[in-house]
């Protein structure tokens, strides 16, 4: 615990120092990155120890007003602390060169990065409701400040406000949940398993799902996420998507521990929300034209996969099947870390492309892999990982979720069986759609020929930006091949959630075998590559232009665009995506302008958020009309209120 406190102190000190040094941009950012690095070095060993050895470390103190408070490092918290430290360091290092390339003041970013990591650690370690909510609030505010870096742009301000308003609205549910829980427990300290009636447990769980689901970006409360991620600086997008939305998952898992026995229907609803988020998230991603917005929708998809695991775990516990619950929770927990790894990798490489090409409109890019080989390779590895392709890390966690669903089919009551089968098929479809979407994104951005001069002028990002990307890409590969080791580190948090050791389930053989076969895949591919090289060694390889079926005057603009690539799937799912098409058709034989544009605005935004905002705007305007304009009337109102209060209490 001392090391953890030292890490937190290092973060705080780095924040103060970088704020003081704000005018010396490079130094401030370096101090901030150094603070994150120091926190990683100090806090990772105790967290890994807790994961490997189980057990819990606690630091308690008595607050004169609120009573006993505590920082608790239990396996569940440690599972979230380790990726937080690792990824925030990568983002901070990347941020140095990324922010220096711009000309805005960086003090806020430098200090804010340290402070948000500090707030994240406190959220995970908080041992009582007040500390948790305070850290939660700070995290929200720092995230807002970090993502509105370019606040002179109206869309950035709009996205920031949307985030702030929605997450605060959701936090009110959390206040209610913790208040009810502390009334029941008689204490604000986090305990385990309050013996609640099923009705009370359902009510608390619903509040937790709304409150934490909004932060996590679960459908239909996801609406802030695709607005906020594209406008933030890329390392902040990575931090938001990799870590901040995971606090929602952490909160949800912590809440299930606090509530104790969650009824089966609650788990089923969570599973349903997971399926909806996964399917609708990936479909919306497919229809996007901007790379970071596409990635933001994939975060919703992956949160959906995590929620499928978490919901299934709760269902299995309620059905008395702890072995299934263990596999499901293991899948959810592992996907939390895996998604943090490859999504931050993807955002960082997207940011590098955006810096080099000055645009992230997918159809204006192309062929960037040639100019930016290391960035492009990192992105392709991240893309394969997020599609869940073996031998990378995304496959391992999705494999566990699939396996839990299949196991649930065999042992659940009928309704649960049907839902598990449905989720299984939906997850398969999500896998195929994600592969389509990332084939589109990586193909149109990195492969082929550059579509615009901006794309052909791209230069590789500096080493300080490429380094974190390569480190994350390597971690994705290594994590995909380290099944037996994952079995060990996952065991303690899974036992805390599910009550059964993961090694006692069929997932044990699965994890070991997938790692071995992943290694076999790499070995066989290597062998085939060697044979191929040997065969081509004898014959010189020739260069030519791409075969265009005999047509000689090919230009890069004739390439298949990302929009056309996704078009058949969008046509199949048009009933869900509701695409809007604007077309200027050719009227005369030699028409001057022919154009077609297709956008798929988020249905939740179109049909729920916008009408609600408009409605509340009208209501507030009415209220404003009723508002007195003179100061005297305010004084009168205060006076009357005071008299009324005195009369009520004393009279």
């Amino acid at each position, binding site marked *: 615990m001392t090391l953890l406190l030292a890490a937190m102190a290092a973060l705080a000190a780095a924040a103060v120092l970088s704020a003081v040094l704000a005018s010396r941009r490079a130094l401030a950012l370096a101090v901030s990155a150094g603070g994150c690095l120091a926190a990683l070095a100090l806090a990772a060993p105790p967290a890994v120890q807790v994961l490997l050895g189980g057990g819990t470390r606690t630091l308690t103190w008595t607050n004169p007003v609120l009573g006993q408070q505590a920082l608790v490092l239990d396996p569940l918290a440690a599972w979230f602390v380790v990726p937080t430290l690792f990824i925030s360091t990568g983002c901070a290092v990347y941020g140095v060169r990324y922010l220096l390339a711009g000309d805005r003041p960086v003090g806020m970013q430098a200090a804010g990065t340290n402070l948000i990591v500090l707030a994240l650690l406190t959220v995970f370690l908080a041992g009582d409701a007040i500390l948790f909510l305070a850290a939660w609030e700070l995290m929200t505010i720092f995230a807002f400040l970090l993502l509105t870096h370019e606040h002179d742009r109206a869309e950035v301000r709009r996205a920031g406000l949307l985030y702030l308003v929605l997450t605060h609205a959701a936090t009110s549910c959390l206040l209610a949940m913790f208040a009810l829980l502390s009334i029941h427990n008689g204490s604000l300290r986090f305990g385990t398993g309050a013996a609640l009636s099923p009705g009370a447990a359902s009510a608390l769980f619903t509040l937790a799902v709304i409150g934490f689901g909004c932060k996590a970006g679960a459908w239909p409360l996801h609406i802030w996420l695709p607005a906020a991620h594209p406008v933030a600086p890329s390392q902040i997008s990575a931090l938001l998507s990799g870590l901040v939305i995971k606090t929602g998952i952490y909160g949800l898992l912590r809440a299930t521990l606090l509530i104790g026995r969650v009824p089966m229907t609650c788990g089923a609803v969570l599973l349903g929300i997971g399926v909806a988020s996964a399917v609708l998230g990936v479909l919306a991603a497919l229809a996007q034209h901007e790379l970071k917005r596409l990635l933001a929708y994939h975060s919703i998809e992956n949160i959906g996969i995590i929620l499928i695991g978490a919901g299934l775990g709760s269902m299995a516990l309620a059905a008395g099947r702890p072995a299934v619950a263990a596999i499901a929770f293991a899948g959810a927990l592992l996907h939390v870390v895996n998604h943090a790894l490859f999504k931050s990798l993807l955002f960082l490489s997207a940011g590098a492309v955006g810096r080099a090409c000055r645009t992230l409109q997918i159809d204006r890019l*192309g*062929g960037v*892999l040639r100019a930016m080989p290391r960035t492009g390779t990192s992105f*392709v590895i991240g893309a*394969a990982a997020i599609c*869940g*392709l*073996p031998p990378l890390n995304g*496959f391992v966690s999705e494999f566990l979720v*699939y*396996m839990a669903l*299949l*196991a649930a*089919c*065999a042992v659940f009551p*009928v309704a649960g*069986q049907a839902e598990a*089968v449905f989720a*299984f*098929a939906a997850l*398969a*479809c999500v*896998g*195929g759609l994600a*592969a389509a979407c*990332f*084939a589109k994104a*990586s*193909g149109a951005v990195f*492969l*082929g020929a550059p579509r615009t001069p901006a794309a052909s002028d791209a230069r590789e990002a500096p080493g300080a930006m490429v380094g974190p990307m390569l480190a994350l890409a390597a971690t994705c590969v290594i994590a995909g091949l380290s099944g037996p080791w994952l079995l060990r580190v996952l065991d303690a948090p899974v036992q805390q959630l599910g009550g059964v050791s993961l090694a006692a389930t*069929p997932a044990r053989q*699965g994890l070991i*075998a*997938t790692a071995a*076969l992943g290694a*076999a*895949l790499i070995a*066989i*591919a290597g062998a*085939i590559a060697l044979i*191929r090289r040997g065969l*081509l060694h004898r*014959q*010189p*390889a*020739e*260069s*030519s*232009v*791409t*075969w*265009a079926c005999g047509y000689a005057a090919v230009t890069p603009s004739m*390439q*298949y665009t990302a929009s*056309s*690539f996704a078009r*058949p*799937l969008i046509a*199949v799912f048009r009933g869900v995506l509701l695409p809007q098409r604007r077309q200027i058709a050719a009227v005369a034989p030699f028409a001057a302008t022919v154009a077609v544009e297709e956008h798929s605005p988020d249905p939740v935004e179109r049909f729920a958020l916008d009408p609600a905002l408009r409605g509340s705007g009208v209501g507030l305007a009415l209220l404003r009309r009723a508002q007195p304009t003179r100061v005297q009337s305010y004084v009168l109102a205060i006076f009357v209120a005071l008299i009324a209060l005195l009369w009520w209490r004393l009279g």
Partner: protein
Amino acid sequence: MRTALHLAILLLFPPLLPGVINRVKAAFAGRRGPPVLQLYFDLWKLLRKGAVYSVTTTWIFRAGPVVTLAALLVAALLLPFGGGLPAPAAFPGDVVLFAYLLGAGRFATVLAALDTGSSFEGMGASREVTFAALAEPALFLSIAGLALARGTLSWTAMLSGQMPAWHLYGPAFAMLIGALILVALAENSRIPFDDPNTHLELTMVHEVMVLDHSGPDFALILYGASIKLFLLGAIIVRLAFPFEASIRAHVALFLAGMIVFAVVVGLVESTFARLRMNRIPQILIAASVFAALAMAVILIRVNA
């Protein structure tokens, strides 16, 4: 020994299947057709040729065929070729790894196609990912149905000794076979989903994605395609011919079953027309519905 036999069948037998299919199609058209071993000759020739690479391509294009073939070979290690020939690697959940390895191979092929920057190859890649995404639920529902009916999560246990299961779940298994045949035809770009013999790039799906590959790379692609056909066929054959016998008789039976599968594919290609592109999603969704119905039947049986 058995592993060696498994590997020998896996590595040597698949290129025979396209030859059989082509002979059946030729017979229907009243031609003599190419030799049954034509693909072996083609592979041998291509392996000794040089290669031409487009100037827009990168390492992705060169890695595509290699990764695809490797993924298919690893997937093949998970599939049993009969009761006497269990898979060299079997573990609970290998069904999921199998499906995702096919996906990994497809992803590599699609990226290699996009790397050429050709609009035709982009078009083919777009169609391929569309059909694959829609075929995925049918494949996974079939897997879930088999898993539930047999109470196992591994191919080897799922595809052996299912005579008693046929008695219990016969109608469901018949529907699963229907769904799996549709998936196999779609995944292998056969009629009615795609015409491997078409000469018009605009109408191609799989063939157009590999237009730019040549020499050994193209040999890897053709070989991989025959293995993919073999793998999906092997699942159907094992499911449709659930007989057990001595190992020698068994291998003969399995290989004969694979030839029958190839003849059936040839018959389908000779008697069906290719579907319009916008019809294909409907057929694939129909395959999912088949598999879902089978799943419902199995669920009712299991809970009865």
